[in-house]
């Protein structure tokens, strides 16, 4: 029985929209699910820009290969090389495409695309629209999606929450179960392929730079249903954010890319050593130049063309620089804060940063054009996420722990040409998880950024996943629809999952009236955020992670007594949040386990009780596998193949 192919895309951020557009363009119908109207997805928050080796950058001496190399170097070589290679070489074409879609990129006086400096590179290779690049890129893709929606090729399900993937007895993904967040209806949807593009998991840390829906709940549900995670311990802490009660608001790397400097008050002795300044109460504008300790410039003076470029080292490195300075007592006013200073920049540069300067001004009441901003590192990005594979022509083939890629895949179409170093275009296996028919795109995909993501590479990887790997999804769905369509799967397979999810909701709702004291989900979430922030961010130790693990495990017990405050039958946000909290706890447990087992320091996984990077043992992906029957996790190590660039030790202190 053949049927019309259908693809479900869960998530309407950059990755989800790019996927929807690409799959629809290939002629396959798309059902697009999102908890929020797609135009309000978290991708709107991205500020700084998107990297690519476009022609003018090339003429300044940069190349796609350099972009590829820099991304691996920044990621401390935990990235998968063929996908990163492919992404770097696709990047200039993606910029052109976004430009054609009408994204209002900043322009040079002559009318060409402008660029700015960004972290982890000494080249000006970051394209941008003011300081709201993510918003503008998302809108560009939102518009193209709307076009396909108007043509009937994309159907949107906004305010629908993905609850569970429908995986049949043969382990093939056949669709999803989702809930209408307004009417609370729970329903199954069939599809010949499902793309998860659900973004990051910052909310596990309570407060982060992410939007309130970035719980990682969707990824965790896939994990519990049998999909694996790769390197979930790899969480990026961004060097510069405004700490807040409800959220840490990012002050983009573009501030430093445009010449902003990080400093703390201090006194320099005759040997050039800095000590904290005794008077902690001074207004920053009263502090003389010689009492400003430019932490990153002093630590990394030779990284770029000028010492000021030291402000643009890889994020994990910059974060540690600021964090340790504050720990040594250099913090502004003696507290946990440093200055990010753009006051010296010319007016037109400040104008380019208007979008973020306005955020600072609105939320703190101070005008950063006149007074240095007070910032501190904050949880920002998940490099880890759902595990995924890909197809390559390279020999030897990467050995994956799962056998989803057939043995004979990757045969060269054109044997007269050398093997292509990247991924095979249109391959159905590109970014498929270990569950057949289930894909992971965007921030939820673990493949691209290794142990640290370079600034302005995320937007690129999200759009690249959608556009490049989207074709493979359409191809896979078409084959499935012909040979083994979801339409042919028994209803019982779907109703089973609907029953499972309905029971879960009913059970939570039933707690509202119960006489028992119960556990407050918001309070439990706050405590989870605290312990994760304490033990799995900038500095990690075995002892700390073990402590966090046992606490998180006790929270998993507490969660069994969680009690809701709302039994409303409409828009019950209490239910949605509490359900996600249960999933966050399980995800947090996996993060800690992977962190504990990775006994080395690599990228953001800096362990003060380990001696540096250990390639012998850990040039590997920590693959987490969950056993729902026992509620236990297993971490299995899979070699990260090294087909193109040998890992080398990272060092930002000298010219690269």
């Amino acid at each position, binding site marked *: 029985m053949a049927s019309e192919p259908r693809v479900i895309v869960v998530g309407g951020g950059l990755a989800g929209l790019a996927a929807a*557009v690409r799959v629809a*363009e290939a002629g396959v119908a798309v059902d697009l699910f999102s908890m*929020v*109207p797609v*135009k*309000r*997805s*978290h991708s*709107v*928050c991205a500020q700084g820009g998107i990297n690519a080796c476009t022609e003018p950058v090339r003429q300044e001496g940069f190349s796609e290969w350099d972009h590829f190399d820099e991304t691996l170097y920044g990621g401390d070589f935990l990235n998968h090389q063929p996908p990163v290679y492919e992404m770097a070489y696709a990047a200039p*074409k993606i910029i*052109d*495409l976004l*430009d*054609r*879609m*009408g994204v*209002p990129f*900043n*322009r*040079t*006086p002559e*009318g*060409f*695309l402008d660029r700015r400096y960004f972290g982890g590179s000494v080249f000006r290779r970051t394209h941008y*629209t003011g300081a*709201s690049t993510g*918003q*503008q890129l998302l809108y560009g893709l939102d*518009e*193209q999606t*709307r*076009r396909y*929606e*108007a043509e009937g090729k994309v159907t949107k399900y906004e305010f629908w929450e993905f609850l569970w993937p429908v995986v049949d007895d043969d382990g093939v993904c056949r669709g999803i179960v989702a809930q209408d967040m*307004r009417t609370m209806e729970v329903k199954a949807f069939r599809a010949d392929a499902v793309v998860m593009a659900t973004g990051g998991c910052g909310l596990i840390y309570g407060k982060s730079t992410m*939007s*309130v*829906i970035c719980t990682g709940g969707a990824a965790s549900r896939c994990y519990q249903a049998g999909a694996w995670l790769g390197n979930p311990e790899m969480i990026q802490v961004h060097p510069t954010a405004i700490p807040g*009660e*409800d*959220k840490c*608001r990012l002050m983009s790397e573009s501030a430093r890319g445009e010449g902003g400097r990080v400093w703390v008050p201090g006194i320099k002795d005759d040997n050039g050593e800095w000590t904290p300044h005794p008077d902690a109460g001074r207004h920053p504008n009263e502090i003389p130049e010689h009492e400003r300790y430019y932490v990153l410039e002093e630590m990394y003076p030779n990284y770029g063309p000028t010492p000021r470029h030291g402000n643009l080292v890889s994020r994990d490195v910059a974060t540690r620089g600021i964090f340790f300075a504050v720990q040594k007592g250099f913090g502004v006013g003696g507290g946990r804060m440093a200055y990010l200073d753009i006051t010296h920049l010319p007016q037109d540069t400040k104008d380019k940063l208007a*979008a973020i300067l306005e*955020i600072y001004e*609105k*939320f703190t*009441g101070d005008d950063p054009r006149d007074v240095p901003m007070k910032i501190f590192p904050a949880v920002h990005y998940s490099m880890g996420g759902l595990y995924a594979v890909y197809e390559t022509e390279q020999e030897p083939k990467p050995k994956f722990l799962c056998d989803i890629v057939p043995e004979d895949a990757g045969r060269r179409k054109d044997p007269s040409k050398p093997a292509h170093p990247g991924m095979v275009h249109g391959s159905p296996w590109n970014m498929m998880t270990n569950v057949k028919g289930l894909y992971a795109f965007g921030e939820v995909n673990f493949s691209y950024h290794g142990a640290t993501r370079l600034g302005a590479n995320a937007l690129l990887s999200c759009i690249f996943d959608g*556009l490049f790997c989207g074709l493979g999804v359409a191809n896979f769905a078409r084959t499935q629809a012909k040979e083994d369509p979801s339409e042919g799967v028994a209803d019982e397979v779907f109703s089973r999952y609907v029953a499972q999810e309905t029971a879960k909701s009913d059970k939570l709702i039933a707690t509202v009236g119960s006489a028992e004291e119960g556990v407050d989900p*918001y*309070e439990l979430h706050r405590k989870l955020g605290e312990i994760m922030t304490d033990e799995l961010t900038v500095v990690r130790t075995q002892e700390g992670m073990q402590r966090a693990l046992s606490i998180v495990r006790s929270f998993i017990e507490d969660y069994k007594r969680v009690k809701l*405050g*709302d*039994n*409303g*039958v*409409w*828009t019950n*946000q*209490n239910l949605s949040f509490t359900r996600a909290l249960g999933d966050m706890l399980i995800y947090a447990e996996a993060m800690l386990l992977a962190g504990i087992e990775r006994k080395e320091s690599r990228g953001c996984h800096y362990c003060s009780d380990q001696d540096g990077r250990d390639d012998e043992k850990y040039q590997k992906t920590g693959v987490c596998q969950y056993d729902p029957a026992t509620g236990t996790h297993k971490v299995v190590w899979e070699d990260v193949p090294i087909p193109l660039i040998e890992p080398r030790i990272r060092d930002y202190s000298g010219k690269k």
Partner: protein
Amino acid sequence: MIAANKPEQFTVRIKRQDGRDQPSYWQSFTVPYTANQNIITVLQQVAANPVTTDGKRVAPVAWDCGCLEEVCGACTMVINGRVRQSCSCLVDELFTGTHDQVITIEPMSKFPVVRDLFVDRQRMFENLKKIKGWVPIDSTAALGPGPKETPDEQHERYAISRCMTCGCCLEACPQFTKDNDFVGAQVIAQALYFNEHPTGAELKGERLDVLMGPGGVTDCGNAQNCVKVCPKEIPLTEAIAKVGRQLTVHAVKRFFAGKR
């Protein structure tokens, strides 16, 4: 530290509604004052302890939010009578000195309420579809760069493209009501945004056709309320005037083409 003129606690009056087409009612909550509080943190405090000022435990308030930094547009509400984003609305700003301040929070009145402060703004997205709010590219294939643009042109388009579909301009507009079909300032400005792009201009005629009919630009009474409340300072009235001029030209062209 609580400043001298700041209360230790204050009252928030919230307009509630249990579901679509249900009656609305008011409830008051007492909330402790904290430094740098915004309306989202106030709502979180209410959610953490949903007990009314007269001691009744009630269902937590539903509201919409996302980015918490005024870029997603989700959290728009009417606060002390003014439509704005609740995430960027600082409590300190609302307190002007006296001790018995009350903050009132209502859902936007021009859109159907889903529950409490949560409204359904689907109409705005539908209108974007109506005016064909996109640049009709051939395909996603690599076909080279887009058209060149001067920095001035970019500035002009960027100013409009920051619209986050929040609906403030529609809430404030006297001509836009729940039941009429006026499209409002947001979508007229968006039409201009696409008309001004060289490839986007391909659909200019179709866009103007939509804006020429009932519910289009002529329904605007030029009250200028929209531009005053737009959080992204989008030059809305200027955009409406420009589209008005485009419409005049369009109407003349249509007249001569005999398409009346």
